[in-house]
């Protein structure tokens, strides 16, 4: 009983730790002042200005778009790559894995500049595509990193057994391997999305005129002071996400109840 309470308290403490800055941001989105230094009264004017600010809205659009696309693409590439790499052995495997880790351990600026030089070398025009390719490049290694331990954990003979029983390799893949490693795929996609949504350096140097994302807009405001319109945006994004989360949670509980299971 005591351990249950301790566990709950620990979890809540950690959640408080993670959400404290978010709460600060939400509170200051209603602050009638440009500065985060002091409270000057309640106002909704930043929300009003947010909807007139086409730059920030455009940045939001691109940010979410690129994050979704790169999460999906890198998860697909990463899943197949991880399964393939898991089947390799020896030096080849080691080399590939270590190369795979380079975008993880390199500082953003090095990845950014080296990709930029690559695109320049090849002569591609910078734009949406170069930004997307760069995002996928740094996301896939994390997806692979997330899935490999699950593949290790999985019983190797499951797939073989399935094929012995007459399944085609594709079928074995779809129905046996992938469900086993699903938590890894899910984790990988989540991490990819998280990394992509917050990237500044790599995006800044690998984009073209007319493309932007929220990180770039926010970092660019650093010299002048971040416009509180951004706090309003953050608050709205946060509220939307929490509402979505609650909604999905309710739906899941309902569908489990319907199937006669226990929640």
């Amino acid at each position, binding site marked *: 009983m005591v351990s249950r309470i301790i566990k709950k308290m620990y979890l809540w403490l950690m959640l408080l730790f993670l959400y404290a800055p978010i709460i600060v941001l939400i509170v200051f989105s209603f602050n009638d002042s440009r500065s985060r230094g*002091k409270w000057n009264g309640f106002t909704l004017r930043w929300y009003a200005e947010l909807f007139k600010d086409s730059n920030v809205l455009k940045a939001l659009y691109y940010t979410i778009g690129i994050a979704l696309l790169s999460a999906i693409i890198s998860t697909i590439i990463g899943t197949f790559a991880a399964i393939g790499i898991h089947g390799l052995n020896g030096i080849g495997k080691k080399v590939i894995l270590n190369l795979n880790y380079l975008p993880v351990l390199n500082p953003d600026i090095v990845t950014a500049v080296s990709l930029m030089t690559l695109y*320049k070398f090849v002569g*591609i025009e910078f734009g949406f595509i170069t930004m997307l390719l760069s995002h996928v490049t740094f996301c896939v290694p994390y997806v692979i990193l997330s899935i490999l331990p699950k593949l290790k954990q999985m019983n190797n003979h499951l797939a073989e057994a399935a094929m012995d029983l007459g399944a085609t390799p594709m079928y074995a893949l779809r129905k046996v391997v992938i469900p086993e490693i699903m938590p890894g795929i899910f984790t990988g996609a989540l991490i990819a999305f998280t990394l992509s949504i917050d990237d500044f350096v790599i995006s800044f140097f690998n984009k073209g*005129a*007319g493309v*932007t994302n929220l990180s770039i807009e926010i970092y660019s405001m650093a*010299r002048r002071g971040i*416009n509180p319109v951004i706090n309003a945006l953050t608050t709205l994004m946060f509220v939307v996400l929490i509402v979505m989360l609650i909604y999905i949670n309710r739906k899941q509980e309902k569908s489990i109840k319907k199937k006669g299971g226990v929640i």
Partner: protein
Amino acid sequence: MRRGLKITLLILLISAISFTAIGCNDDKPTLNVYNWGDYIDPDVIKDFEEEFNVKVNYNTFATNEDMYVSIAKGGTSYDVAFPSDYMIERMINEGLLAEINKDNIPNMKNIGEEYLDLDFDPGNKYSVPYMWGTLGIIYNKTMVDDVVDSWDILWNEKYKGQILMLDSQRDSIGVSLKRLGYSMNTRDMNELEEAKNELIKQKPLVYAYVGDDVKQLMVAEEAALAVVWAGDAVAMIRENENLEYVYPKEGTNIWFDNMVIPKNAKNKELAEEFINFLNRPDIAARNVEYIGYSTPNVEAQKLLPEEIRNSQVAYPSKEKLEDTEIFVDMKDMLSIYDELWMEIKAER
């Protein structure tokens, strides 16, 4: 699982289509602007778009150096950019800028003479002034009882842990040089070493080396003294009346952000129209009221509210500006500066 996959592919398809579609709405000419974040009144842009029936793509950058790498790499083009003085000097020397056709910018006559024909762009062949400002000391009247008129106060033991310096190599080393009576653009190693040693001596007194958070910190009274730019000081004083701004007697840095047209700009004429538009007195006045820094457009200055026009912070008298220097591009000295800065930071 099958449904999930279908939905995923659908999202992919829709996103791909909509993103390529977004790029394809150019029946109107487009102007690619490359500016600091939040450095122009959004309504001014909307007015320009309406009056000239064009679309403006507003791209942002965080530092001069980021902008420089971005433009120098090529592969994409911007029509107007807003670099600072020393960066303009570098870009001119490297042939990255196009000469401006002043016949297309008649409103340049509204700009005060004192802001033109400066060392980094003699004759203003490549750039037109946009905003300017100075570096100084902001302090909290209730926390500092000495007279503040010199950079020395930042080395005063009494204020240990209450001093904020800028986390910027040139600004902080520049302050130290000025305090010792040297030029902010010196190449003399002895002078630089001396400045470095003074900064190392100062380090135990410094609360933190900060960037834009200096505004938040001073308004919240977390520190007593800080080095800031005049434009920021105006905003801070508005939030907290205990704050005051001074120009140190040893002199300080004056900076300019000018508008330039990169060589590979696709819409040079439209860019010049834009620069001309921004220099209309009423437009420039609106813009500078939004941004809060100082404008070089004297006709616009006349339209500003009296308290700002006469503010010694935003528009100081000529005597105060006598000992100011503009940063010069340091070129080969940059790695020396970098090593000095590293030694200062590495002291523990």
